[in-house]
């Protein structure tokens, strides 16, 4: 009984540590994304509408789940996506940031909220 409790606490401490690391990772990715946005013109040009079914099919399961949720919602916060995927918000933020860095989705701060949306080609007609 006592032993189990001890292990429980230990696990909890490890989980807390993982979570803290994840938050730190997210902060680093945030900085990376911001730097990218500043240097947008210098970095290599990404394709027009980069997310399609075949690209989605080739993604690893955990990222596809996040990307599909963005496709279905159009625009959403990490919290909203986490509610739909039943995963922790910190985890979802990390996946969303990875998708931003890969150029598949975009990130935009609106007041206190940070929203993610699909990187689409311009609205003008051909």
């Amino acid at each position, binding site marked *: 009984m006592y032993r189990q409790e001890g292990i429980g606490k230990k696990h909890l401490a490890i989980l807390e540590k993982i979570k803290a690391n994840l938050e730190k990772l997210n902060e680093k990715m945030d900085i990376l994304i911001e730097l990218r946005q500043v240097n947008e013109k210098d970095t290599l040009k990404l394709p027009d509408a980069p997310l*399609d079914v075949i690209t989605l099919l080739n993604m690893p399961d955990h990222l596809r789940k996040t990307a599909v949720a963005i496709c279905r919602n159009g625009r959403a916060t990490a919290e909203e996506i986490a509610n739909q995927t039943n995963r922790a918000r910190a985890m979802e933020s990390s996946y969303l940031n990875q998708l931003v860095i890969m150029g598949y989705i975009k990130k935009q701060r609106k007041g206190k909220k940070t929203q993610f949306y699909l990187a689409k080609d311009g609205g003008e007609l051909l």
Partner: protein
Amino acid sequence: MSKLIVVHSYKGGTGKTIMSVNLAALFAKRGKKVAIFDLDFRAPSLFAILRAETRVWLNDYLNKKCEINNVLIDLSSRISGEGKLYAGLADPSPAAMQDMATKGSEWGKRVLSRLISLKEELIGVQKFDYIIFDTSPGLQYSSMNAIVLADLVVLTTTGDCSDVNGTKRMLSEFYTMWETKTGLVINKVLDDEARSNNAEYVKRIEEEYNVPLLGAMPCFCEVLKAEGRYLFPQDKPDHPFTGLLYEIADRIEKKHYTLTCGIQKHHQNTV
């Protein structure tokens, strides 16, 4: 709530078009604002079924030649009541069909983002209650895109053994990739046991496919004879086909009826 409903099947001729059109008419009859689109570019059929005139097609929207409002045809006058019914048609000219069939991968990449824009505009901005996509059978490019975006897929199938087998494989090997909410409609059933109020039958089907059953539809000569001429909820309100359609619509609309397919649950557990 399921906003974007995609009607799909493994094989052709399972009743997707008839189901899409009549579900759209039914929701409009219930006072909803509904748009139905023909995503079957391989064999367009809504223009003939709905007998609607247009010069602007869904093809043009996907090709970025126009806005979605140019494509929508207002058919609300065909339905009594306050509801609204609009349709967007696939271009049935052989040249357009050929054009769609030979589009390269660059174009293919645009479709998903155009369909996302369509959904955002109609549901987010214009406050449509339902968008219904009638699709090509199997894993056609346009159908795959529709499945990815669907809030609910109504998967129609018949008792035909090659259809049953293919439908199951498509569910377990393709639908699970997207964790798509799916409800099954067994169409053109011949035996009397096959009723959605027969608990044993429902259990057997749901276990077999691992997907909730929305309804089982017998083969009706009048449906075949109508050749799509009628909007059943409006023109034949007392026909048993209409009655069963209402049951299916109820299951779709019931907010607490979660259409979580078994495969999907299993999938979640493993994450």
